[in-house]
Every structure is written in structure tokens, then in C-alpha cells.
């Protein structure tokens, strides 16, 4: 009995992680599940068109170099190091690397429609797959920095991310259920934004709420936070492109 009870507790512990999807009401879950109702799917369609469109001085489309199906699972493992670089990039950064070095075109701006469309198109190809951060020792210090950022207090309200997302998840913050902050669904169509947005934009929103100065869009701190969050959510199922309140 004792063994059974503690075994159940351990199992329960393993399943204590909940995605933002599980915290949403049934109506929003339905909207996300139905591809004809999920507004993010419009971005996916536009992303597919972009994927096939030749661009830049090399006059090549993404599809010219990448076979159909080759992007399966890719969104589930970034941030990651790219060959020849000493800094990890997130998926948006990886797309822009191909944009500048392969297509020889100007990088897409942060939160630009094109970047969101392409990332939504890629993210869909990881839907249903487990989050699988790379087994790469170079990411260990990056994740540690992300963890420190997550657990340190900041802003005029003197809160840490962990105060809400580890210690008070599931409770009501002035009417909003605090999720556990698992990045399973990005980019997301957020009803409050009335558009698609990246994980970075979501993190910036939380920082602004804490009255902390958000990092610049290209700051390595976001990649560190994202790397930590992905590790924390390892094995959870990708539900991108998701809908969130």
C-alpha cells in the first residue's frame, strides 16, 4: 500500500505539468482544435506561400533547399546551436539566418508578419510531437542563465516569473488563470492581441506586467529564457499554433 501510494504520487508528480491549453475553457480549446476556426491557420497558409516564394540575391525559395516534411520536429527542439556559431538561436533566429546567409535577403523584423507566418508554418509541422530540446552540453549554461532570469525578482512589483508560474500556477490573478508557462503553442493567436505573436512577445508582456524593463528584441536573454522553458517542458506535446486568451 505504501509503495502503491508513493508510486501514484510519483506518477502524479510526473503529470503535474499542464499546458496553457489544458488551463483554457472548452470554447477556446474547441477554437484551437478546429483548423477552420483557429485564426492562426490563416498565418500558416500565408507561411506556406512564403516558403515557396523565391527571394533575395540568391533567388531561392526555402522550398528549393528544404524538402517537404524536412521541418518535422524542428520547432520542438529550438533554441539550438547552429554549426559555426557560438550562440544559440531560437526558431525565429534560425529562419532569419537562412534568410540572410542562404537567400541573401534582409532579415525579417521581429514580430513581422512574414516571420510569424513562416514560424507558424514550421510550428504546425511539430504539432503533436513532444518537446525535445537538444542533448547539447553547450546549452547547459544557457539554460542556467534562463533559470536564473526566471527565478530572480525584477521590476517595480518585485516579482519573479517563478512566483507566478511555479508557486501560484492554477490560481486566479485578478480573474486570469495563471498557466505554468510551458511554451508548447508558439507562435500563438492571442485573443487579447487580436493577432499572432511570438513567445518573445508573450515574455515581454509578462515583464511589462511586472513593471520590469523588457529586454531588447534581439537580446540573448530571451533565448536563454526560451531554452530554460523548453527544457522545463521537455516531453510535453506541442500544440502550436495555439490559441490563448
Amino acid at each position: 500500500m505504501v509503495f502503491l501510494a508513493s508510486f501514484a504520487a510519483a506518477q502524479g508528480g510526473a503529470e503535474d505539468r499542464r499546458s496553457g491549453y489544458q488551463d483554457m475553457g472548452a470554447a477556446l480549446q474547441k477554437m484551437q482544435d478546429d483548423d477552420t476556426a483557429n485564426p492562426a491557420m490563416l498565418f500558416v497558409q500565408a507561411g506556406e506561400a512564403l516558403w515557396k516564394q523565391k527571394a533575395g540575391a540568391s533567388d531561392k525559395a526555402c522550398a528549393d533547399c528544404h524538402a517537404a516534411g524536412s521541418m518535422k520536429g524542428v520547432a520542438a527542439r529550438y533554441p539550438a546551436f547552429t554549426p559555426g556559431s557560438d550562440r544559440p538561436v531560437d526558431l525565429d533566429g534560425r529562419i532569419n539566418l537562412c534568410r540572410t546567409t542562404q537567400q541573401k535577403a534582409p532579415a525579417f523584423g521581429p514580430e513581422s508578419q512574414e516571420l510569424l507566418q513562416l514560424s507558424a508554418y514550421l510550428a504546425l509541422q511539430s504539432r503533436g510531437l513532444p518537446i525535445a530540446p537538444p542533448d547539447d552540453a553547450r546549452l547547459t549554461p544557457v539554460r542556467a542563465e534562463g533559470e536564473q532570469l526566471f527565478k530572480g525578482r525584477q521590476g517595480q512589483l518585485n516579482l519573479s516569473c517563478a512566483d507566478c508560474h511555479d508557486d501560484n500556477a492554477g490560481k486566479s490573478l485578478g480573474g486570469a488563470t495563471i498557466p505554468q508557462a510551458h511554451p508548447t503553442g508558439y507562435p500563438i493567436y492571442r485573443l487579447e492581441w487580436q493577432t499572432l505573436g511570438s513567445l518573445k512577445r508573450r515574455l515581454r508582456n509578462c515583464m511589462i506586467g511586472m513593471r520590469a524593463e523588457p529586454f531588447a528584441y534581439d537580446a540573448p536573454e530571451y533565448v536563454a529564457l526560451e531554452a530554460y522553458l523548453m527544457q522545463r517542458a521537455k516531453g510535453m506535446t506541442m500544440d502550436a499554433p495555439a490559441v490563448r486568451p
Partner: protein
Amino acid sequence: MRLRFILPLAVVGAVWAVSAMAQEELRPYVIVGDSIPDSLTGLSGDAERGRAIVASRTAGLCLLCHSAPIPEERFQGNLAPNLAGAGSRWSEGQLRLRLVDASRLNPNTIMPPYYRLDRLHRVARGFEDKPILSAGQIEDVVAYLVSLKE
């Protein structure tokens, strides 16, 4: 900027010294035990105004975490105790210290320090070197909390 989280203590001391100058705006107060017995402004606050501050999502932010007997505010939080009855659980001076710097009562509290400027990191532009509430607002909220007898 990211270094701020891991600054060695000696350097943090220097940062404090800098913000201490801006702190001249904070009125001095005396802590006696677990309370600040005297009004920060020398005057007593206005409970009606205090109620509005507590209800406000941009001023007090209290209802993010707390619930309170403010029925017209539908969305209230449950990270912290209901404020109903706070005036019978705590003295005026205890409530004042709780608002000014709750970490004096519980070092791990998540309740924001409403009238403190030091030991903060990466405060957003526009909020730097300002307490969350002014001394007058603190007194208004204290007056409202004292009135919550049940």
C-alpha cells in the same frame, strides 16, 4: 543589464548608494516592532479614496492577488487572503508597515513593496525611483483597510 541579478554584494551596495539620493522623496518613517505607528504624511487618510486605489488595476493592483468586499469588481485574485476583516486582524500601524514593505514581515512575500525603492532590479522606464504608491495614497489605503472590520 543581465548582470544585475548576479552582482556581488559590494557592487549592489554602490547601486543602493546611488538610488538613495533619489530616495529623498520617500518620507522617513519609524518602525516599532511589526508596525509603523505614525502616519507617513502626518495626516489621516481618506477611506473612500483608499477603496478606489485598492480597486484600481493601475494604482493599487491589490485585486490581482487579493479579493476584497468590493462587489462591483468582478475579477479578483486568490493568491492572497481576502482583505475583508483586515481592520480587525491588524492594527493601523501593522497595516501601514505591511503596505510600505511587506518583506519586513515575511522576507519571502510576493506582496510588492509599495513604498520602497531599494533592492529592486530592472525596474521599467517610467517607474524608476518612484514608489508604487505615494505617501498620501498609502495613508488612504490604510484608512480603508482599518475600516474593514468584518
